[in-house]
C-alpha cells in the first residue's frame, strides 16, 4: 500500500504532523510566539518555539494549521531550506490539503478521451476498462454533473477542481472530456440531508447544480451550462450518462434559451419533439394552425410562454407581463380569431404548447 506523502514526511522526520483548528482569537496565540505577522503562517515556514524546538508549518488554510516540531540541530540548514521549498511548491500545486486526494491528471484525462471515443462509436453501454477505473472507485455510486464553459478563457483544471471541492465540501473526480467540457463526479452522499428532507432528490440535485452554476459564474471564469443526473455507477454507466447529459444541455439550449442549468427529467417532451423528422414537423405545423406566422410574433410568443409558465392562470400571467388583465384577454381572443385556437381550452393549449416548442427546432418554409 502506497504511503501518502504525509506519512512519508513523518517517517523521514521522525516526528508526527500535528493538526490544530484555528478559531477566531487563536491567531493571537501564534502572534505571541512568532516574530512575523500571522499571514506569514504558510507551508514551509519555520520558527523557533520558546522551548527551543523548531516548528515547521506543513499546511495552513483559514481553518486549520498542520505542523511538525523538530529538535534543534535535527536538520541541517540546507535540509531545512529544501523542506521549506518543497512544502511551498506542494502548496502552490495544491497538494498540501488533506481533503484533496489528487488523482493523476493523466488517468482522468485518458478516461475522458475514452468516454469521447465510445460516444463517437455509439458504444453507449461500454464498461470502463480496469486501468481507467480510478483505483476501483468508479464501482460505487456518484452524482454526475456535466459542465460546459461558455467563455473563451482557458480554464485551469486544478483551479476548477479546488473550487468544486470547496463548494461541494467533498472530494470530486474531475474528468476533462472535450475542450471546455468536464464531467464532475461527486459522492452520492450529497443527497443525504441532515434531519431528513422535504425535497425530492430531483429538487436537491437541481438546487445543487444551480448553486454550482452561480458559484462558478462569480468565482471562476464566467458563464457556463450545467446538467445533472441521478446517481450512477460510473464503471458501467458513465458513457451513456455523459451522452444523456450532453443531449440535455443541447436540448435545454435549444428549447429554453436563457436557462443555464438543465435536468433530464424536465425535457421529456422536448426530447420527443426533437426526435421527430423535420418533414413531419413542418407538416404538423402547417396542418395544425391557420396562421402559423402569428406564432412567430415576439409579443404573442412571450404572452403564451408566460401564460403556460403561470399554469394558464390569466391573472397571474397579466401580473407577470405587467399588462392589464383585459389586455391579456384581448391578445388571447385575437389569437383565437386568427388561428382558431383558444388556449383557455386544454386541448388547444396542448397544441399551442407543442407548436411553440416545434418552432424552436423547425426550419419553416
Amino acid at each position, binding site marked *: 500500500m502506497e504511503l501518502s506523502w504525509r506519512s512519508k514526511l513523518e517517517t523521514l522526520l521522525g516526528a508526527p504532523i500535528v493538526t490544530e483548528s484555528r478559531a477566531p482569537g487563536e*491567531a493571537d496565540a501564534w502572534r505571541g510566539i512568532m516574530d512575523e505577522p500571522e499571514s506569514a503562517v504558510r507551508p514551509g515556514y519555520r520558527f523557533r518555539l520558546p522551548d527551543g524546538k523548531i516548528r515547521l508549518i506543513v499546511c495552513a488554510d483559514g481553518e486549520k494549521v498542520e505542523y511538525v516540531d523538530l529538535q534543534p540541530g535535527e536538520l541541517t540548514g540546507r535540509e531545512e531550506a529544501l523542506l521549506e521549498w518543497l512544502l511551498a511548491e506542494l502548496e502552490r500545486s495544491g497538494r498540501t490539503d488533506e481533503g484533496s486526494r489528487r488523482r493523476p491528471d493523466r488517468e482522468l484525462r485518458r478516461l475522458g478521451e475514452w468516454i469521447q471515443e465510445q460516444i463517437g462509436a455509439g458504444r453507449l453501454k461500454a464498461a470502463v476498462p480496469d486501468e481507467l477505473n480510478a483505483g476501483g472507485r468508479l464501482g460505487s455510486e456518484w452524482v454526475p454533473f456535466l459542465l460546459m464553459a461558455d467563455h*473563451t478563457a482557458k480554464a485551469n483544471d486544478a483551479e476548477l477542481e479546488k473550487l468544486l471541492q470547496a463548494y461541494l465540501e467533498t472530494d470530486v473526480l474531475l474528468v476533462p472530456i472535450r475542450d471546455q467540457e468536464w464531467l464532475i463526479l461527486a459522492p452520492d452522499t450529497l443527497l443525504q440531508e441532515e434531519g431528513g428532507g422535504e*425535497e425530492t432528490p430531483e429538487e436537491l440535485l437541481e*438546487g*445543487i447544480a444551480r448553486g454550482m452554476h452561480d458559484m462558478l*459564474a462569480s468565482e*471562476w471564469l464566467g458563464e457556463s451550462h450545467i446538467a445533472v443526473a441521478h446517481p450512477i455507477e460510473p464503471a458501467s454507466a458513465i458513457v451513456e450518462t455523459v451522452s444523456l447529459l450532453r443531449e440535455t444541455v443541447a436540448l435545454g439550449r435549444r428549447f429554453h434559451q436563457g436557462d443555464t442549468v438543465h435536468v433530464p427529467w424536465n425535457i421529456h417532451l422536448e426530447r420527443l419533439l426533437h426526435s421527430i423528422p423535420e418533414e413531419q414537423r413542418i407538416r404538423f405545423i402547417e396542418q395544425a394552425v391557420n396562421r402559423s406566422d402569428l406564432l412567430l410574433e*415576439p409579443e404573442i410568443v412571450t404572452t403564451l410562454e408566460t401564460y403556460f409558465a403561470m399554469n394558464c392562470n390569466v391573472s397571474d400571467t397579466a401580473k407577470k407581463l*405587467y399588462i392589464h388583465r383585459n389586455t391579456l384577454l384581448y391578445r388571447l381572443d385575437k389569437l383565437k380569431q386568427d388561428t382558431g385556437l383558444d388556449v383557455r381550452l386544454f386541448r388547444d393549449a396542448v397544441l399551442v404548447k407543442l407548436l411553440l416548442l416545434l418552432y424552436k427546432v423547425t426550419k419553416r418554409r
Partner: protein
Amino acid sequence: MAGVRLEHVYKRYPGSDVASVKDFNLDIKDKEFLVLVGPSGCGKSTTLRMIAGLEEITEGKLYIGDRLVNDVAPKDRDIAMVFQSYALYPHMNVYQNMAFGLKLRKFKKSEIDKRVREAAKILDIEHLLDRKPKALSGGQRQRVALGRAIVREPQVFLMDEPLSNLDAKLRTQMRAEISKLAKRLETTVIYVTHDQIEAMTMGDRIVVMKDGVIQQADSPEVLYNHPINMFVAGFIGSPAMNFIKGGLYERDGAVHFKAEGLDIELTEGKASIVREKGYVNKEVILGVRPEDFHDEPVFLEASPKSIVSALAEVVENLGHEKNVYLAGLGSDTVIARLDGRSDVKEGANIKLAVDMNKIHLFDPETELNIFEN
C-alpha cells in the same frame, strides 16, 4: 470604491446581424445608484452581464475604476452580483453561504466571521445564520443573496431584477431596504429592472433602453417631467402618459391643439416654441399625464381655455385617488387620475381642465418631444 465607464460598447451574438446592444456610452459615477430600465429584450440584462464579465464585449471598452476590464474574469473584477435567478448554495447554511467567497479567497477566519456577522446585522438575518436555504422565506433568501454580495465589499454591486420573484408587498419592502443599504454601504450599484416604479423610486439616475439603444439617461425627475421621446414618456409613469393624435392651428393669435373631442389652447411659452419649429398647421401627438387632468372647480375656473368634456366609462376607486377611463378624447381611451374625494360617477359626462404647463407634444414621425429637442 469605483465608477464604471462604458465606451462605445456593442454586443453582437454570433450568426446575428443585429446588435443586442448598440453604441452604449455611459459614465457611472462612484457611489451612484444607476438603474437600467426598459422592456424585455431591450439589452439591459445583456449590458449588465457584459459589466459582470458573463458576456463578452464585441466592441468597445469597459472600465471599472481606471482599469480596463474587457478581458478580466468575473472573479477578478471586484464586483458582486445579485441576479434574478440567484441560487443560494442549498447544502450550506446561511453563514456558510455568506462566508463561501471569502473562504475561497483565503481570508482569515476571524475576518470572515466579522464580515458575515456585520452583514447579517445590517440585513437583520443574524437569527438565520444556522438555517439552510430551504428553511427560509423568499424575502429571507433575497437578503442572504444580498449578504453574500455585501461581505465581499466590492467596488460595484450588480443587480439584475433581484425582486422579480417576490410578491408585490415584499417587493415594495425590499425596494426600500435595498435603497437604504446602498446609501449605507456607499457603493456603486448598477440595477436592472423592467419595472419603471422600481426605477423611479430607487435610482439616482435612470437609463431607459429600447432595442439595445439608450433612449435617455437622467434623474427620475427629469425623465418624468422632460421625456425626450414618446417611448420614454410612455414607459415612465403609471398609469402611462396619454397620447392623443391631433394637429396645431393658430386662432386669434393663440396656438390651439385640436383633436376629436378637444380643442385646447397652448401657453404662450409653448406656442412660441411650436411656431419657431414650424409645427403650426401640422399634425402632432399630445402627451398628457393622467394626473394633469383636474376636475376641481378652482382649476376649472382658472383654465377656461383648456377644458375638455368626456364620458367617464370606468372609474377605479383606489381610495386616495380615482383612475377614470375617458371616452371621446381622441380615438383611444384616455386615463385621468383624480383625487379620491372627486364625485365622478361611471357613465357621467364630466368636464376636466388640462394643466397646459405640463403637456408634451411629439413629432408623429420622429416621436421626439418637440419641447425637449
